[in-house]
């Protein structure tokens, strides 16, 4: 089953064409890594896919429901009610966690399912406990974000995204704000999710991790997909630009 489909996505900021005819599809259970230099449009693509940024042209579909369709060369968004439903399909984990600092760990995870999805409190709390256990954070329900390490905060934010029971998860450079030790714990969580066949799209600079965990790797530069394919392209890139980029990681 196809979870996400992006066709001919275009986006410009002023004179700068940030995304130029990007197409990408993600099947259920797939892990797709997006790599590339800063300013290549990776994050913008993720922000367009998660509806945080509006695209200028192209199509965006979740489970065959159109969030954006193209009409006369311009992107047309679905009505708000439909977008609200479509938002339930995915979760997003930010580089800077963006936890709600005034909420306890438990409330960070449980408020949206109760408030937005109108699910039963008992059920949501039980699920949150499970998720915290999975994230190795049992017993930290009442802590506030500032009392946790960066790695713990990121695990809470993953739990927060999972509590919405999304069909897929996006990660926007989930380890870029963390030191190497904490990076390891987050990568392990993502590996575990991959083992459970969670559908994921990950923007990352962790090359060996991307190679190990992904089914598909996308290399972007200058707003276009330069190279795309099996994770082996990280070890054996074919495009000159990809080779040059990956050389810097071989140090």
């Amino acid at each position, binding site marked *: 089953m196809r979870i996400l489909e992006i066709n001919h996505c275009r986006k410009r900021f002023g004179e700068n064409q940030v995304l130029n005819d990007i197409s990408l599809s993600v099947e259920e259970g797939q892990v797709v890594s997006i790599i590339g230099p800063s300013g290549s449009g990776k994050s913008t693509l993720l922000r367009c896919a*998660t509806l945080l940024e509006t695209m200028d042209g192209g199509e965006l579909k979740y489970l065959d429901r159109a969030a954006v369709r193209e009409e006369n060369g311009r992107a047309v968004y679905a009505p708000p009610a439909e977008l609200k439903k479509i938002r*339930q399909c995915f979760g997003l984990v930010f580089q*800077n966690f*963006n936890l709600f600092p005034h909420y306890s760990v438990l409330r960070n995870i449980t408020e949206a399912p109760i408030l937005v999805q109108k699910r039963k409190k008992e059920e949501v709390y039980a699920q949150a406990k499970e998720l915290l256990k999975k994230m190795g954070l049992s017993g930290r329900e009442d802590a506030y974000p500032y009392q946790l390490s960066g790695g713990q905060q990121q695990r809470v934010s993953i739990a927060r995204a999972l509590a919405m029971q999304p069909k897929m998860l996006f990660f926007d450079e989930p380890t870029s704000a963390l030191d190497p030790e904490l990076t390891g714990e987050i990568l392990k969580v993502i590996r575990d999710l991959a083992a459970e066949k969670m559908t994921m799209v990950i923007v990352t600079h962790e090359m060996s991790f991307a190679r190990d965990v992904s089914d598909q790797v996308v290399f972007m530069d200058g707003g276009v997909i330069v190279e795309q394919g099996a994770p082996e392209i990280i070890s054996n890139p074919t495009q000159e630009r990809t080779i040059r980029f990956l050389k810097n990681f071989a140090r």
Partner: protein
Amino acid sequence: MAKMSLGTMILKMSEGLGTTCGIFFLTLLFSLPLGLVVTLLRRSRLGVVRGITKVYISIMRGTPLMLQLMVVYYGPFYLSKWISKTFDVTFRLRWSGDVLVPIIIGFVLNYAAYFAEIYRSGIESIPAGQYEAAQVLGYSRPQTFLRIVLPQVVKRVLPSVTNEVITLVKDTSLAFTLGCMEMFTLGKSIANSQSKFTPFVIAGVFYYVFNALVAFVMARLERRLNYYR
């Protein structure tokens, strides 16, 4: 006039303390929430609304509160006089009843503008990531504002609000402009009739103690919001 002892002076001036406190609490009661409304209008999507709100705030901040009190109190009378003359009708507007009403209106209009600007700085200091996280989780715009943004704004603006509240305590003395019998007005009349400076010293002590209390209460509030960072 008979000579007054220190005790009598203090007692006499205390009679005005109720009015002083009344101006203080009523102004806060109305201007704190009104400030929030003003700041929302100031951030409205409609340019006209934004423009009008900006002008209102700049007038409130750019002219003396004393003058604003006089405009609220005498304004309706002179306006109706001018209208009567210009359009050849006869009607007169003037405040009847308690002078406290126009005073509170003047104070509230003024303080709401200041609070609005304080709230605005607080709202603008909330990182975009908070809105984005809420949006991805499906919070509606009102839910995002009320549950995610506003509580964090309250914590951030509290020190600035404290400043403004302390200023308000001292500003209550401006009510004398409209002949309101609050504490400072009474003190001045005693000082005049007795040819003594003592009432001003007493007034100073009253304000100082009042503000010490305000500072104490606000510090406690700040501490209560220290459960997160």
